[in-house]
């Protein structure tokens, strides 16, 4: 019997290694898999390359990973925010490398990795600093920049519901990068509010088919809220 459910967040991240490339879902804090990240911090690995839209907000999630000095490089579109102080300090001190990618190119490059494409031509960024030195091509009168896929060893994402085969549905705007990161990483790990028996997720509404998901772990959202409040 195939059961992709891990017993705990610690068990779910047990094989993440030093120097791994890790995609982390979330747009700001919506969709950020906080409990998986806490388990990763507790595990003690470092020298990570993190792929996320932002570079951490406040004290939790990606911000906590940076605060703990576990991130060597971050690939993101929007690092600088009012509450990105841990990234700002690490960047100014030269402790973290930044690859800045326009948000749509970030999504397209992640999707390209998940779709098995060798590269993409994107119009975004043409003629700007972020395309300097990159190959370009004119196709049907429009200018494009050659960009390469972004692969990762692991993806940590947050979804609403899973079954033991790894089929996922998401909740509202917490979906964001989850579906494409699950496709792009060698091992995709989803934390979900509940794991339901096979067949309880309507097959017509599955957003991420289980083939893209290697592990799921149930995190009771009520318990995690109580823990945050304590």
């Amino acid at each position, binding site marked *: 019997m195939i059961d992709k459910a891990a017993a705990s967040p610690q068990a779910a991240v047990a094989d993440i290694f030093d120097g791994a490339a890790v995609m982390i879902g979330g747009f700001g804090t919506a969709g950020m898999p906080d409990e998986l990240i806490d388990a990763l911090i507790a595990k003690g690995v470092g020298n990570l390359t993190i792929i996320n839209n932002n570079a951490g907000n406040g004290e939790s999630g990606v911000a906590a990973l940076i605060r703990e000095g576990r991130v060597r490089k971050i690939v993101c579109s929007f690092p600088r925010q009012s509450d990105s102080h841990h990234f700002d300090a690490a960047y100014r001190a030269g402790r973290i490398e930044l690859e800045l990618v326009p948000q749509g190119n970030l999504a397209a490059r992640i999707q390209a990795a998940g779709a098995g494409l060798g590269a993409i031509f994107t119009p975004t960024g043409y*003629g700007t600093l972020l395309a300097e030195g990159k190959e370009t091509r004119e196709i049907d009168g429009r200018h494009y920049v050659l960009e390469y896929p972004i692969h990762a060893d692991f993806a940590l994402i947050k979804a609403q519901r899973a079954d033991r085969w790894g089929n996922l549905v998401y909740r509202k705007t917490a979906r964001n990068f989850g579906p494409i990161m699950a496709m792009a990483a060698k091992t995709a790990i989803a934390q979900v509010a509940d794991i339901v028996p096979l067949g309880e997720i309507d097959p017509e509404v599955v957003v991420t088919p289980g083939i893209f998901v290697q592990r799921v772990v149930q995190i009771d959202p009520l318990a995690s809220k109580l823990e945050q409040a304590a």
Partner: protein
Amino acid sequence: MNRMNRDQMAERVARDIPEGAYVNLGIGLPTKVANYLPQEREIFLQSENGLLGMGPAPAPGEEDWELINAGKQAVTLLTGGCFFHHADSFAMMRAGHIDICVLGAFQVSVKGDLANWHTGERQAIPAVGGAMDLAIGAKQTFVMMELLTKQDESKLVEACTYPLTGLGCVSRVYTDLAVFDVGADGARVVEMVDGLSIEELRRLTGVPLAAAEMQPV
């Protein structure tokens, strides 16, 4: 002259957004446009983080932090609205499914080049977000900004001096003093506030301006 305030500018932009338009409003000043979209028009607001049919802010205490906009503020979803992932969201922009996007700017050139993501200062931490995708992707890109900086320098320029967001992507610029069409043929004045002459506008901006058939604002 009757310089427009930010709410009046938002109201002016809203007038040009037609029934049925799919619209993305950028972070900052452009988000005000939502407050002035006429109730009788059905207009679809898209947010880059994966929603279409974005509604107003929820009542205090009703926030759901998994239902937010690009500025990470709590929002609501209109009946009939929907969610989607980031690759679909940016496909909507890049491939021109979005009819209009409204962005703020540091500078816009008379040819429609846009600079709105980076001041180019060495110590500044750069952040681009969805600005480059939005600028070049929508069928029409509108800019909304004060015409002059605090130092009275024109933000409508012959050529941008700040790092570019996109080339030739802006079609119309709404400011507190005038509305301009920009593009390959240069800048054309569409409207001016009462009490302003095109000669004065040319003096303030220092750029060549063609006059259109004038209409009162």
